[in-house]
């Protein structure tokens, strides 16, 4: 008997609230722009946040309203921009592809170890104690960036440095945020010249820590034929990405080979994985 009453009570209450909510949803209905749904279908729905708004649904609303540029979706790139333009009946603009660049080449071979780190295996916590390498600006090598990448576009190579796969990176910038030492930066695809070092120590000290450190000699600054294309800041060559010429004129004379032209390895994931397999199997 009590069972029947219990079932009836629950059922009755459920029905009561269901009807109440059904009426409320009719009364409080919000008309949504049908274009928003259309845009949502085109977007990659990765919710990566690279466009600057939280999530693809916010992006869709902003785009329809006109607050967001049509080519702002970094993850989708040109393809999505074109599709969106077609769906909304407006002109497509060229989308700039952004790529993650790892600005440190001090792997296990090039750097010295001055300690053994036994803590939590994340860069964020290793950074608090200083990590294993003596250079306090270097890559910590504990792959926070690889973990943060939702697109499988990063992996650690056998030298303990992260590699960005050209074919997988969508430019969301999650790795750049994850890196506690700000070694990873987001740059447009057309950028070719990079200083692969963040060391602000004086030349001799930097050289002692790492074979490929920027020693602040200033040769690249002299070689740069555009005024202010490269400047020295705290013993470190810093590229002005807007004016520095994208050729090898500045990179030839670097004694430590830390400024390089077109060196960003256009790694394709399959090729990298198969190479790693070969090394592992010893063939």
């Amino acid at each position, binding site marked *: 008997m009590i069972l029947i009453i219990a079932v009836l*009570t629950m059922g009755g209450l*459920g029905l009561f*609230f269901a009807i109440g909510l059904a009426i409320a949803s009719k009364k409080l209905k*919000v008309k949504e722009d049908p274009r928003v749904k259309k845009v949502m279908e085109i977007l990659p729905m990765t919710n990566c946040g690279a466009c600057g708004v939280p999530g693809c649904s916010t992006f869709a609303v902003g785009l329809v309203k006109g607050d967001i540029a049509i080519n702002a979706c970094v993850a989708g790139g040109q393809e999505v921009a074109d599709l969106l333009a077609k769906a909304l009946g407006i002109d497509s603009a060229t989308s700039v592809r952004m790529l993650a660049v790892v600005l440190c080449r001090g792997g296990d071979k090039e750097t010295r170890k001055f300690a053994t780190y036994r803590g939590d295996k994340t860069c964020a916590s290793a950074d608090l104690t200083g990590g294993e390498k003596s250079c306090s600006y270097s890559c910590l090598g504990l792959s926070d960036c690889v973990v943060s990448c939702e697109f499988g576009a990063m992996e650690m190579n056998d030298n303990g440095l992260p590699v960005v796969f050209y074919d997988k990176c969508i430019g969301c910038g999650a790795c750049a945020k994850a890196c506690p030492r700000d070694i990873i930066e987001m740059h447009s695809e057309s950028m070719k010249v990079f200083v692969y070092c963040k060391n602000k120590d004086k030349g001799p000290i930097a050289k002692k820590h790492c074979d490929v450190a920027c020693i602040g000699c200033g040769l690249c600054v002299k070689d740069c034929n555009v005024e202010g294309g490269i400047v020295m800041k705290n013993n470190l060559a810093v590229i002005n990405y807007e004016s520095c010429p994208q050729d090898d004129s500045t990179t030839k004379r670097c004694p430590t080979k830390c400024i390089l032209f077109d060196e960003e390895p256009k790694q394709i994931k399959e090729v990298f994985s198969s190479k790693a397999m070969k090394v592992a199997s010893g063939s």
Partner: protein
Amino acid sequence: MNIILIFLSAAIVNNLVLAYFLGICPFLGVSKRLDTAVNMGLATTFVMTLAAVITWLINNLILIPYDLPFLMNVTFIIVIASLVQLVEMFIKKMSPPLYRSLGMFLPLIVTNCAIFGLALFESLRGYSLLEGLFFGLGGGVGFTLALVLMAGIREELEFADVPRALQGAPMTLLIAGMLALAFMGFAGLLSV
């Protein structure tokens, strides 16, 4: 007089968040900005007050007469979930920016244990309908108070030089603990 005592007790002395440690999730999650915190507090207060009244009615008119107190938890959850749905629709209609800024935390009021705890306390302590109403209102005001205090402190904290290891969650938890300690000072004020 009793009603005022119950209200003050729920709002300050036995603050649901800072004395019972209920509803910590929105307390930490929505306390980043003052205006969002106030609105979240108001939404929760609304749900709490209505939930206190409706659960009292269900409890005393259906569950107890038919000897079904074992259905208490389930029915209370249904009531809270429906109310939250209602509030969500209402906010979506009335204020889309607020709807967006509350985000996931709005539907998550359903799982806010402060509301559920409040409904259970109410039936446990055998309040009358009017007492229950003020208990719910007091609980909501107390929740809003805790949220607003926290948000105010966290906004000021943006300009403070926090050690790197304590930035974000650790600092927030420390502050929550200190707020709770401060609220213990009210403990001798009244006992209901």
